[in-house]
């Protein structure tokens, strides 16, 4: 596995390195530490931070390369990922907001999530051990691939994994509200509704991809982003896993028409976020 860890020399980037070690499955892969600074004066501090990150990551890697680029972080990271095929890009969420949040121009991580063509792990409030992971599934065709890749990336974890699907539907008429709108995960699976079948198949895909932790299916009703955030807050999760808005091969018009749920979750989640 080729992994790129991006750093601006901030403590958040160092926390990202710590998070990677806690995922458990990445040891043995090829690792590149990419430092990005806007001018040469910052380079010494950046290299010191990269050394600290290398020691956090430990000796278990097949190879650790260090590389410094100068310029705008988003442009430089994108240039790096275009030059070499990485399986995972890791970065810290330092809270540095570039651009107007109101216009959804967002942070560096947010901009990268919209443009990058590989999995992105954004570290935020990293715990000493990963205890709870929330995997979200949209019950759509792309989520099959999301589950397979999420299972591969999480296969070394021993954390409790909860699999969440949110039903935000309302009935068009009061006389045709299907009972699916009142289901829990258990009743949906028992009754084999579309959501129940999907949860069941998503669990199988995660397990087939190598996830060994027990998986608990969850079904919530309400606005998608708000329900996911509520689950994160109430369940005290350490990591959120969501599908990317940009999917390889997806129609560009479809991408424009669809709401970018991953971006909103990335901006509002209280924990680290893995976008697959």
């Amino acid at each position, binding site marked *: 596995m080729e992994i790129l860890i991006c750093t601006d020399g901030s403590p958040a980037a160092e926390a990202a390195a710590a998070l990677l070690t806690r995922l458990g499955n990445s040891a043995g892969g090829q690792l590149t530490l990419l430092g990005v600074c806007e001018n040469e004066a910052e380079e010494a501090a950046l290299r010191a931070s990269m050394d600290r990150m290398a020691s956090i990551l430990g000796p278990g890697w097949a190879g650790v390369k260090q590389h410094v680029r100068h310029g705008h972080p988003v442009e430089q990271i994108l240039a790096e990922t275009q030059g070499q095929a990485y399986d995972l890009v890791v970065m810290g969420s330092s809270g540095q907001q570039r651009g107007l949040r109101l216009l959804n121009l967002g942070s560096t991580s947010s901009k990268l999530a919209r443009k990058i063509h590989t999995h992105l792990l954004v570290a935020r409030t990293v715990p000493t051990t990963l205890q709870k992971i929330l995997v979200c599934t949209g019950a759509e065709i792309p989520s099959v691939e999301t589950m397979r890749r999420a299972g591969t990336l999480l296969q070394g974890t021993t954390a409790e994994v909860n699999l969440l699907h949110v039903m*935000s539907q*309302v*009935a*068009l008429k*009061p006389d045709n509200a299907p009972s699916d709108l009142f289901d829990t995960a258990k009743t949906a699976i028992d009754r084999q509704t579309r959501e129940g079948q999907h949860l069941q198949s998503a669990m199988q895909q995660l397990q087939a991809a190598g996830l060994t932790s027990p998986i608990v299916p969850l079904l919530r009703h309400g606005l998608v982003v708000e329900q996911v955030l509520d689950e994160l807050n109430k369940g005290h999760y350490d990591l959120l896993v969501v599908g990317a808005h940009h999917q390889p091969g997806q129609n560009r018009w479809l991408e424009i028409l669809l709401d970018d749920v991953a971006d*909103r979750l990335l901006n509002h989640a209280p924990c680290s976020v893995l976008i697959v």
Partner: protein
Amino acid sequence: MSDNRKRSRPWYVSAALRLGLALFCIVLFVLALILLKEGAKPFAPLIRNQFSVDSPASALGFGWLSANLTLSGSPVAATSLALLDANVLSAVESFAMIAGSRLGAAFVVLLIGLVYMLRGKQRVLSLNVGLLSLLVTQTMYPLVLALGFFFMSNGWLDRWQVQASQDVSSPLETLINPLLIVFQELLPTWALFPVGFLLVLSSLWLFDKAIPEIHFEEAGLGLLSHALYRPVVVFLAGALVTSLTMSVSVSLSLLVPLSVRGIIRRENAIPYIMGANITTFIDTLVAAALLANSSAVTVVLVMMISVAVVSLLVMALGFRQYECFLDGIVNFLGRRRRHLVGYIFVIFAVPFVLLIFG
């Protein structure tokens, strides 16, 4: 048998029948408006003195209550224009009555919900798009009213007053005048008003039947049939589709095929309703144009612009918060039976209070 006949009918025959029905509805609608206008004058003392409709607040209550009772908004809005044309209401009062008609338009949703609730299915109501439609209107209209009154008091739209063309109404008048004479000979003047109202109601109902049944094939839409759209996309779709159907409820019913199970995502329903709320006034605008009354046209345009401005502000500045707010209200109403009963009481009591004390 009849279904087979319907299916085997060539498309051009169906189209011609629908067109014929639509034309008949237009003639009926114009006749109804003229009857309303002719019959409104004897009702002036009743509306002004007995119903106390003598201020914008009481006109708001009157429109709201009328829509609650008739279970429909558009006929009440058309009536308010006829009352304006007959000088029974002022322009501001007519504006308030139209706003009231929208506030009570979806009351039927609550009545149906109440029936379901009495059958012990209280949660069903909280989960239907009709309640969302009612809540979107009720939460946005305080601002819409404030903005509309502001526009009208400053006369900002007067310089763009659209004069309804007499040429448009003249051919219709040659057709309608003989019918009007028949009604005038058969009925006392005061009776023209209720008859006109019933004809408006009937013409709009029939017009809904004339609209072709549009079927979005779920399979053809792929991911779009299930996924969340960007709010602005759905907002524009709601405005566009409703401008063709001229009815929020008909427009919403077109969404049924988007889900096999008759359900739609909250994230899509709310901006769709917001968009639909703007163009639902097209039939009222047509009514104003047919009355050839520039004040009536201005009143409807002020309403449409006010709804559009408030909707766009909500979309641009706080759509997510607004969405959560509405979701919170829906959940609150669905949580306890008494919450829903209280809500029904409030939306019936408020227009009464406005009518009596306004």
